[in-house]
């Protein structure tokens, strides 16, 4: 009996073992079947997603901490097609809220490829619109109404410029693909954008791991003074209207260190609507004329000619020159701006009356080697190295070039036959305001990254003239400005400067009716703290710089001394003596 039970038990155990074994075999079979591979790959697909983490683009501030370029949240509005219940009502509601037509939305919802799980209806939708849609969704959800089921909002950043068009020519802009164009945004695009990182985000919370920290883009602090920039832009706008000029630029720089305090150019663009770019500019060089457009500057270059002549010892301030109204250089006769003869002049008189003949005589006395050697050292024909994209380098013809003629030695001395940008002139003349040392202009003041501040040191681009020459010329230009009773003067402050009226070269010679007017000036003469360059294109009320650019300089200087807290000379000397 006992043995009978044992046999039965063994049979049952064997049967169960066989069933168990069959189950295990089947499990192994299923796990390794072809279908299993398909299911596994499907499972992997939904186990998480690769996500590209784009760091927040670095912000841009002015030197006083005012935000010039930041970021704001916008949304991608899309629909999860598998969750969508009613494409009709979805199309109607989204069309109404997003400013799209019913057909446009409906077609996207119904005619997407079958494999699509999700369809984007519109991107870069503002927070206000999304908030309204969210409220509507909530109301419908509360009422168990499935009409907006599947609607999704994906937030992301968009570049925002709180000051709209202020300093637009310096800042540049960022397009929707996240790339910076022009100015700071292009020059420092890599720093500002940071490094995007692709990560795997598992849906299984057990597999959740720490996401690598993606540092944001570098924040930049500029040398610009926002308030001065606004004032200078306003002055430039007024000047264009008042003098009927086409376009213009004004740059204010600290000659001691090359910091650009303000850089205004026209036309400006609302950076939040960069679609206007093509309607405002014909080509990239027009975006920031201060650095992108070279022109024949005319008489402002006489400052450099005189600096070179003084430095070589060719002339001293008291050197006399008998102006007969014309001089022949390279077989071509050169005349003064008014075709008059000015008689006996010293070098201050030559600058004061802006005599072309005198300057051509000076350059001839110096000779080509010395003259062009100095012009090269002043940086003409070379990039200034400013940290903005789109810089033009102008043209300085030198002996040996195919298109250089001996007469160029004479005409170049008073700013004809040579092209420069406003910034190049400012940089070159900074040597006169800065004891012979020429500064490299720059716009970046500091970079902030990971809680560290990296200051941008001032750089010098050589000393083309001696400190003594700089002092002498500084004084000569101050006297010439005072004696000329120039409209550039500012009561209470001793300033130095020079006008420039230049004919405009065309394919058929110089335009007899239009001019480019410029002015370069700085102050206070005994301790230069600001330097201004003005260029107005083809003014119509007057062709002369002394009647157009000079008064604009006075206005800019007035606002600059107020905003930079520079007391009048008398007050300053009292404060220093205390």
């Amino acid at each position, binding site marked *: 009996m006992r043995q009978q039970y044992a046999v039965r038990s063994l049979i049952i155990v064997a049967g169960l073992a066989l069933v168990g074994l069959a189950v295990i075999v089947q499990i192994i079979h299923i796990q390794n079947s072809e279908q299993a591979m398909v299911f596994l790959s499907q499972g992997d697909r939904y186990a998480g997603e690769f996500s590209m983490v784009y760091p*927040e683009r670095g*912000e841009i*501030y002015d*030197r*006083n*901490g*005012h*935000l010039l370029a*930041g*970021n*704001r*949240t916008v949304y991608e509005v899309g629909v999860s097609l598998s969750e969508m219940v009613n494409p009709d009502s979805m199309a109607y509601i989204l069309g109404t809220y997003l400013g799209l037509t019913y057909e446009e939305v409906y077609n996207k919802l119904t005619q997407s490829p079958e494999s699509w799980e999700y369809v984007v209806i519109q991107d870069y939708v503002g*927070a206000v619109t999304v908030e309204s849609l969210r409220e509507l969704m909530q109301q419908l959800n509360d009422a168990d109404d499935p009409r907006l089921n599947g609607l999704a909002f994906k*937030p992301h*950043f968009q570049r*925002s410029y*709180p*000051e*709209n068009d*202020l300093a637009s020519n310096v800042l540049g802009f960022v397009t929707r693909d996240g790339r910076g164009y022009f100015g700071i945004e292009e020059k420092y695009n890599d720093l500002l954008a940071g490094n995007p990182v692709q990560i795997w985000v598992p849906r*299984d*919370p*057990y*597999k*959740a791991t*720490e*996401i690598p920290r993606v540092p944001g883009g570098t*924040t930049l*602090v500029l040398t610009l003074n*926002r*308030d001065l920039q*606004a004032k200078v832009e306003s002055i430039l706008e007024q000047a264009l209207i008042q003098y009927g000029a086409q376009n213009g630029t004004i740059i204010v720089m600290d000659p001691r260190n090359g910091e650009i305090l303000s850089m205004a150019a026209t036309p400006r663009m609302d950076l939040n609507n960069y679609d206007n770019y093509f309607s405002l500019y014909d080509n990239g060089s027009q975006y920031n004329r201060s650095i992108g457009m070279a022109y024949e500057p005319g008489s402002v270059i006489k400052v450099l000619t005189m600096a070179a002549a003084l430095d070589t010892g060719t002339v001293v301030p008291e050197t006399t020159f008998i102006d007969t109204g014309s001089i022949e250089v390279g077989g071509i006769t050169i005349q003064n701006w008014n075709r008059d003869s000015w008689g006996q002049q010293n070098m201050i008189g030559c600058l004061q009356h802006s005599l072309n003949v005198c300057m051509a005589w000076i350059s001839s006395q110096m000779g080509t080697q010395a003259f062009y050697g100095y012009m090269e050292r002043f940086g003409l024909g070379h990039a200034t190295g400013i940290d903005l994209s789109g810089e033009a380098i102008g043209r300085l013809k030198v002996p040996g070039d195919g298109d250089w003629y001996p007469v160029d030695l004479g005409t170049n001395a008073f700013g004809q036959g040579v092209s420069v940008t406003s910034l190049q002139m400012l940089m070159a003349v900074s040597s006169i305001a800065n004891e012979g040392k020429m500064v490299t202009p720059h716009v970046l003041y*500091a970079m*902030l990254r*990971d*809680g*560290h*501040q990296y200051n941008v040191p001032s750089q010098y681009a050589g000393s083309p003239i001696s400190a003594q020459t700089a002092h002498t010329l500084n004084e000569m230009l101050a006297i010439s400005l005072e004696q000329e009773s120039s409209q550039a003067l*500012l*009561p*209470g402050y001793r300033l130095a400067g020079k006008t420039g009226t230049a004919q405009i070269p065309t394919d058929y010679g110089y335009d007899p009716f239009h001019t480019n007017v410029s002015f370069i000036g700085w102050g206070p003469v005994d301790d230069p703290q600001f330097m201004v360059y003005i260029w107005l294109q083809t003014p119509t009320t007057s062709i002369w710089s002394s009647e157009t650019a000079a008064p604009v300089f006075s206005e800019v200087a*007035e606002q600059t*001394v*107020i905003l930079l*807290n520079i*007391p*009048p000379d008398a*007050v*300053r000397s009292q*404060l220093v003596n*205390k």
Partner: protein
Amino acid sequence: MQGQATQIIHAYKQAPWRVQRQWIGAFLLFLIGAAMIAALYLDVTARAAVAGRDIQELRYEITTIQRENADLETRLADLTSTAVMQRRAVELGYRPVQPGELDYVAVPGFVAPEPAILLSAKDALFPVQPQPTEYTQSLLEWFDERIKSGGAR
């Protein structure tokens, strides 16, 4: 002799019910051990899952807060932009100052403060309070330190 040996073996052989009990005890011990390990594993797994979910939520929260910060900063800049401030100043009856209306006063030792954006970066450069060694050194390192210092703190 053989009879004596059988007697001795009998004397030391466990009773069958004792052997059964030992087997059952061992099995139960194994079962309890396995259950404890399983419970421990389940607990750790559950905690890890909860922590993972918390990480996911915190990560989302961080992103949301970063966006809010950026939005607020931009909004603040909008409200204090040059154009807005000028308009408000005019509405409040202010006008631009003229050069002759300014008074300058020398304040010895005064240095104009730097903007907050630069100061915030400099604050971050201050040395961070170092973590106490209790949190970083191993037991062996602690023993070593104690021995070297002769037990004095």
